[in-house]
Every structure is written in structure tokens, then in C-alpha cells.
């Protein structure tokens, strides 16, 4: 049977399968390996959650910027130099005493690359995608987050090309901190909504 020798069975391990495809594409002149290196370099070292942390810290310290972020997140974020693929249309959603926001993509892996980089494995995997919309409190508990009972939770399913950035609550005890110091305590997960930003001195 041809299927026994088909491509699905030729490469049981993904490293060999990816390498074989890259080799064919390079030989056909369709892919330049140096471009792949440049793409990897971009997302390994340049575009990541430190971008988002800078946006959040600025929103915490500049009221005008926070207002702009609420009104037109795409423009406000672009003004800090964060533009491009999977961040073309941005929305910022603000946590507060009356709401905790959580972002998911139940249908695939949509994620705001320009501010958070590449999504973590769990964000793309069935456990999170299936339960975030139905049992967000249970999901949050697995991240060690317990919200006050009755606190409203808002889940944003990224079903279109809008990409959502959660602006977490600024913790008490950070009064007088500048934006750079604040950015250091803003975690990736807090900008997805699966963590809170801990007050300084709190156990993580």
C-alpha cells in the first residue's frame, strides 16, 4: 500500500521532517535559510513580552497614554515602535476592581505577537483553549491565581484579527516607581490574564 511508504510515515520525528522540507524549499529557490535565521532571531531576542511590559508600565504612569491605549490601542502601541505581524489591530483591556480579563483563542492560536512575542505552548494547547471560556476560575487556579468570589471575569475569545492585551492592575507598594522599574515586574502571563502582578516583596 502506498500509504505505508507515504510521507506521513517517512519521518516519524519532526526534526527530520522539518529539515527535509527546508532542504527541498531551499533547493527550489523558494526559501533562503538566512531569512529563516532572521525570523528566528526576531522572535527569540527582539519581539517578546518585554514590549508589552513597557506598554503596561507606561499606561500605569501616564494617564494620557492610558487613555490613548483605551481609545486606540493600535496607534498607542505603534507609537512605541511595536508594530507588525499579529499585532495589526490591537485592543487593550484593563483589569480593575470590577473585572478580571482573560484572553484565549479557542479556534487556533491568535496572540498579540508584537507585544508578547510567540505564544507559550499552553496557550496553543487543548487544555487551555477548551476550558478558558467555560471554567476560567479553574484555569486560573492552575496558575495559582485565586480571584475574590463573585469578581466578574471577562474572557475574550480572539476569533477575528483583533489582538488583545490585558493591562493588569498596578500593585500597591509601587508608588513613585518609574516606568522602567515597573516594567520589570509585569509578567507575560499577567498580560494574557493568567496571572496578577505581584506587589513588591510578595511571594511569587
Amino acid at each position, binding site marked *: 500500500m502506498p500509504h505505508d*511508504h507515504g*510521507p506521513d510515515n*517517512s519521518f516519524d520525528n*519532526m526534526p527530520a*521532517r*522539518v*529539515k*527535509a*522540507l*527546508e*532542504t*527541498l*524549499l531551499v*533547493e*527550489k529557490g*523558494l*526559501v*533562503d535559510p*538566512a*531569512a*529563516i*535565521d532572521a*525570523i*528566528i532571531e526576531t*522572535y*527569540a531576542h527582539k519581539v*517578546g*513580552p518585554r514590549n508589552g511590559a513597557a506598554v503596561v508600565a507606561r499606561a500605569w504612569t501616564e494617564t494620557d497614554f492610558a487613555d490613548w491605549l483605551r481609545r486606540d490601542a493600535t496607534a498607542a502601541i505603534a507609537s512605541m515602535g511595536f*508594530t507588525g*505581524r499579529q*499585532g*495589526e*489591530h490591537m485592543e487593550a483591556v484593563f483589569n480593575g476592581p470590577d473585572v478580571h480579563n482573560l484572553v484565549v483563542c*479557542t*479556534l*487556533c492560536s491568535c496572540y498579540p505577537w508584537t507585544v508578547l*512575542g*510567540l505564544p507559550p*505552548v499552553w496557550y496553543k*494547547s*487543548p*487544555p487551555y*483553549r*477548551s*476550558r478558558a*471560556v*467555560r471554567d476560567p*476560575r479553574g*484555569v486560573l487556579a*492552575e*496558575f495559582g491565581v485565586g480571584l475574590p468570589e463573585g469578581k*466578574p471575569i*471577562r*474572557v475574550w*475569545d480572539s*476569533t*477575528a484579527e*483583533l489582538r488583545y492585551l490585558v493591562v493588569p492592575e498596578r500593585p500597591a507598594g509601587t508608588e513613585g516607581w518609574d516606568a522602567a522599574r515597573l516594567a520589570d515586574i509585569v509578567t507575560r*502571563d499577567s498580560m494574557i490574564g*493568567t496571572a496578577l502582578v505581584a506587589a513588591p516583596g510578595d511571594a511569587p
Partner: protein
Amino acid sequence: MNGPHDLGGRMGFGPVVPEPEDVIFHGDWEARALGLTLACGALGHWTIDESRHARESLPPATYLSASYYEIWIRALEALLERHGEVSAAERASGKLEAPGLRPERCLRPERVPAVLAAGGPTDRRVPVPAAFAVGDRVRTRNLQPEGHTRLPGFAREKTGVVEAVRGGFVYPDTNAHGAGEMPCWLYTVAFRGPDLWGADTDPALTVSIDAWEPYLERA
């Protein structure tokens, strides 16, 4: 399509396993898979909607047992085959049988920063006024196409409230199949948790989707 990707509300997948922020790739092959997928996108044979549809069209057992980069690579193989660039026979033998169709579109390293920074905006002008306004009660239609759609199954035939009118956007249901961008109005529609998941659901839960106008009717 009612595919394996439509995971909202499914049960039995176990706990979420968090991961440290500094873990980006699990092995070099994941990094190469990312780069290959983006570089091949630059050839211009397919849209992001067609690539999503290629991923969700994998056999369900494959989709649900594969890591996400494996899903990407399997879908990339399907897309390259569909568009005549790399045949199954070439993948099996590792030997070229035909030259590439679009070598002139090959992404060069010096263009990578500009291409990634430009992205691919999908907002478009829609020549007709929006049918719904903020605050309108709407009901999602019972749409179960065999092709691509971005209306998740859990939000089908549900009543919610229009929370934002986002403007006109490329319609994935047609664009994924080469049938044109057909831009439509896009709305953020919010649903009460109990309306989605039953009366014993946390009443403090609200879930929203972003829905194109053809997905909606007035409630």
C-alpha cells in the same frame, strides 16, 4: 467546519501546564518550523485564512495529538502541495522533480525586518452601513459550513449583546477558499456565562467573540 480545532467548552484534556516566560522553542526544529512557515507565507500563494483552514483540516486524531508546530508543518506541507510547489512524491523521496514556481518571491534576510514590522492588516472599507449598533441584542446563526468559519461552535445560536462595532474586515469564510475578501462589519458580541454553558454556570462570567455580520441576526 466542525473540526478538531473548535475546542471551546470541550472536556477531558486535563490541566493547563504553565511554562516559564523564557522558554520560546523546544528544540531547533520548532524554530525552523516557525521560520519556514513565515518564509513560505511570503511566496503569496495563500492567505492567513487559507493557512488556518489547512491546519483545522488535518485529521482530528492527528490535530489533537500533534504539538502546535507539528500542526503548522503538516499544514504547510498540504499548502505547498496544493499550490504546486512541493509534491508528496518530492517529500517522500527528498528529490526535486520540478523547480519552484515563485523563486522571485523568495524572502531575503534583509527584507525580514520590514516584512515582519509591516504585518498584514485586514481592515477594509465596507460600502454599506453596519446593521447593528452597540447595545443591540443579537443572536448567532446556526452556521455549520464544511469550509472555514470563525464562529466557534460554543457560540452558535446564542443571544448576546453587541459591545463594539470594530469596522470592516476581510471575511475569512470566503477568503480562506479563494472566493475573495468580501469585507463585512465586525462586532464584539458578549454572552453571559449561563447563556453559553447552562444555569449552574458562574453568573459573574462573560465571554465575548468577535463576529462578522453574516454570523448574526437581530434577537
